[in-house]
């Protein structure tokens, strides 16, 4: 068992050439914060990209940053914050799910390359795009040991195939990423959140859709059932389910939009009239900037969801309007610990260990979407299909795409699909 941690491109190339020559499978890692996610890789050797940890170029006025794939996200975000900018896709930190319980003030885990390789995006996803939408260029070495680059350093670019998108979300199975260029955006001056109490999932999804279809530019929309809301300091004492809507921007604009949003929901909230349903408005102000930021970080990081050895976490991407039906089919049967984010398009379900994958996935058959076993014991992840199985024609195509980068199957074999 060897662990390689190259710091120079030449060394990375040499390692991959060696691995290709001997058909030696490698587990490709970065900050190791996502080891608990996906299929465990059966590889004798580890290729860590943590050594590519420098920020190569940051031009705030060009809205672009280039850094080694192993650069800690915390370092990238701190540098951006100095210039009032951010990674707008709001990368979450799910390292806690892997069992690494960080101290509250510990820097957030993860690397820039890792968040791109997993295409991990947070609550702002529907308003600002996913990690893949912000990854505009990269340099990598394929499974043949050949370095290549793709994309560029400008946002508007259609020169050649968009390989940065293909590599985003490929979990290190196509190429070893060593440099990433991302588009960055100005951070909002202010963030506030409106809370709606006691809504059923149906009413919450309808309210979120109404908010997202409005002109008020909502940038976060989540619904937390009572038990989960109770674990958020900002929502403690609410005593029931809470629906949260976030508005960001210049302060005067945020104030104006919050008022507009409140009026809109007061007038036409589909759940109005339900017992206990309605807006928190008159008696208490919306969450202030600090509370709002803390709450959305917690939602993105899944902090309010209990992760225990006897539980496993499912991630369902689905059409938002189908969320209530999916919840009705799954939640009573399996769990009361769930969280609906991204306007209803992303459902996190904390189920008892061993919950049959087929019963989770079957409910998506009519509405579309996919379910990933996001966190579970390594044994369990090794035995079931962690990522949603694909129809045969698509699976065959994906396999050929894998082979076009890594014909010998040396990069993270089986990490996504056991077959390749």
């Amino acid at each position, binding site marked *: 068992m060897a*662990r*390689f*941690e*190259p710091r120079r491109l030449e*060394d990375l190339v040499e390692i991959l*050439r*060696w691995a290709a*020559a*001997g058909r030696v499978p490698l587990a490709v890692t970065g900050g190791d914060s996502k080891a608990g996610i996906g299929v465990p890789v059966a590889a004798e050797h580890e290729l860590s990209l943590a050594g590519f940890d420098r920020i190569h170029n940051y*031009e705030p*006025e*060009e809205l*672009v940053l280039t850094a080694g794939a192993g650069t800690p996200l915390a370092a990238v975000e701190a540098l951006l914050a100095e210039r009032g900018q951010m990674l707008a896709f709001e990368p979450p930190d799910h390292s806690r799910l892997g069992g690494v319980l960080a101290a509250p003030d510990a820097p957030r885990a993860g690397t820039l390359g890792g968040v791109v390789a997993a*295409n991990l995006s947070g609550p702002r996803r529907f308003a600002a*795009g*996913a990690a*893949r*939408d912000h990854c505009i260029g990269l340099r990598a070495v*394929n499974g043949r040991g*050949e370095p290549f680059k793709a994309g560029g350093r*400008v*946002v*508007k*670019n*259609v*020169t*050649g*195939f*968009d*390989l940065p*998108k*293909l590599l985003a*979300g490929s979990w290190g199975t*196509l190429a070893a990423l060593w440099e990433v260029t991302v588009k960055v955006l*100005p951070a909002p001056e202010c963030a506030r959140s409106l809370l709606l109490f006691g809504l059923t999932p149906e009413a919450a999804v309808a309210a979120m*859709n109404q908010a997202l*279809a409005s*002109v008020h*530019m909502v940038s976060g929309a989540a619904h937390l059932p009572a038990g989960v809301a109770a674990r958020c300091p900002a929502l403690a004492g609410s005593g029931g389910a809470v629906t949260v809507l976030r508005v960001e*921007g*210049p302060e005067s*604009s945020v104030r*104006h939009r919050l008022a507009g949003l409140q009026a809109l929901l007061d007038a036409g909230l589909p759940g109005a009239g339900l017992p206990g349903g309605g807006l928190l408005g008159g008696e208490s102000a919306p969450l202030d900037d600090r509370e709002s930021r803390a709450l959305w970080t917690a939602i993105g990081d899944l902090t309010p969801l209990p992760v225990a050895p006897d539980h496993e976490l499912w991630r369902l*991407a*689905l059409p938002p*309007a189908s969320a209530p039906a999916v919840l009705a089919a799954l939640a009573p049967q399996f769990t009361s610990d769930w969280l609906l984010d991204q306007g209803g*398009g992303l459902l996190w379900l904390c189920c008892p260990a061993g919950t049959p994958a087929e019963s989770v996935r079957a409910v998506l058959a009519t509405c*579309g*979407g*996919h379910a990933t076993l996001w966190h579970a014991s390594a044994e369990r992840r090794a035995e079931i299909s962690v*990522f*949603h199985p*694909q129809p045969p024609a*698509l699976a065959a*195509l*994906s396999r*050929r*795409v894998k082979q*076009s*980068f890594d014909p010998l199957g040396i990069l993270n074999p089986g990490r996504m699909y056991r077959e390749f």
Partner: protein
Amino acid sequence: MQMPAPEPAILAQREVLLAELRGFLAGDQVIADGAGLRAYDSDAFTAYRQPPLVVVLPNDVEQLSQVLAICHRRHIKVVARGAGTSLSGGALPLADAVLIGMGRFNRILDIDYANRCITAQSGVTNLALSEAVAGRGFYYAPDPSSQIACTIGGNVAENSGGVHCLKYGMTTNNLLGLEMVLLDGTVVRLGGKHMDADGYDLLGLLTGSEGLLGVITEVTARILPRPETARAALLGFASNEDAGRVVAAIIAAGIVPAGLEMMDRFIVAATEEFCRPGYPLYVEALLIVELDGPAAEVDDLLARVVAIARAEGAVSVRASENEMERLAFWSGRKSAFPAVGRLSPDYLCMDGTIPRKQLAHVLRRMAELSREFGLRVTNVFHAGDGNLHPLIMYDANVPGELERAEGFGSAILRLCVEVGGVLTGEHGVGVEKRDLMGTMFDADDLAQQQRVKCAFDPEGRLNPGKVFPQLHRCAELGRLHVHGGRLPFPELPRF
């Protein structure tokens, strides 16, 4: 521009192919007569023309799949075409290729307000998507200037942009799902009405693949609520440098305008002459800065933009006070191409992207090149995202001028790459920039892209001669030359 030589083995099959196609398609779905074929002999990149082998107009996915399977079995090349508005020759026919016209895929299949998306067949126009949802206050964000004619399938193939992509993204940032047919006739669906399709991001790969990977038949796109209000500022400057500094300062101030356009002196004069938008004629560079969103925010940000412009020495400042004025500001910009068309018998429209900070330098170099090549050039520019559209004016009737104009265009695109930019921001590589791919990508970069092509189309029959300067056989690209065997780098840290 060298296109792949027509293959005699394909040309020889023309009659039997026609018989086979006519066996299951109606008479008007197969076009083979000279006059009919000539109607399809180019797209909007009109410098090159070539009638196709045959034109086929399938009615539905089943027919399309059958046509492709026949071509696949017979090893016949295929070029797909939407409305034919490509500016880079993406849909340029080949003498030995079947041209598939997607015009009959013209139905909007589903409008889903609860999931804020629209599903349409690929031949529906870009504008029709927005019009279909306008009644409920929604629109489809990417707005290429050809939106009245261009199809959503073509937009996906080219990853089309528009003037609002700085804030709202290009086509790829606004898609949820698609259906396509591979060359062997296999129908594949990607994504759906949910965000982030599972598995490899083939949706992202297909977008902007210029018809080289599959034929798109259906698209599911996100729709957005129309912003509450929009206002624009018209800012004139005595130099390109001043205008460039204001663009940088706006971005640095944390403002992301919905549109940020720049026009040079020639365009300002040409458009003023053409449609009287009321532009100041004494400026070297004119910016249109559009802000959209909630009224309170737009007013506030517009005031900040105006203050920045004044501080940087703007010589003319106007802010739109009503919708009529805003549209008047845009009317000149939107008629830039026809306005130039009136002043020059022909022009080439280029499409490079540069880092914003290089703007003044690139414009200076372009003026020098203009003198070198002896041809006039004028610039409209999506300044917000650094996307240049130099218009090179020439006269095709003067022997050698087209070649000179192409040489000038290549020099401009090389310059874009040299300063850290790219060959094409939104028009695509097509045939137009194919032979310049080597200025941006090395052999390994191109080989990797072509191997991905092999995963979809191992025989290279789908839209050949586009994007890649050299065609390699997939077997050759797949060959491995590996060496070694000893564990490398004994000095590397291992744990």
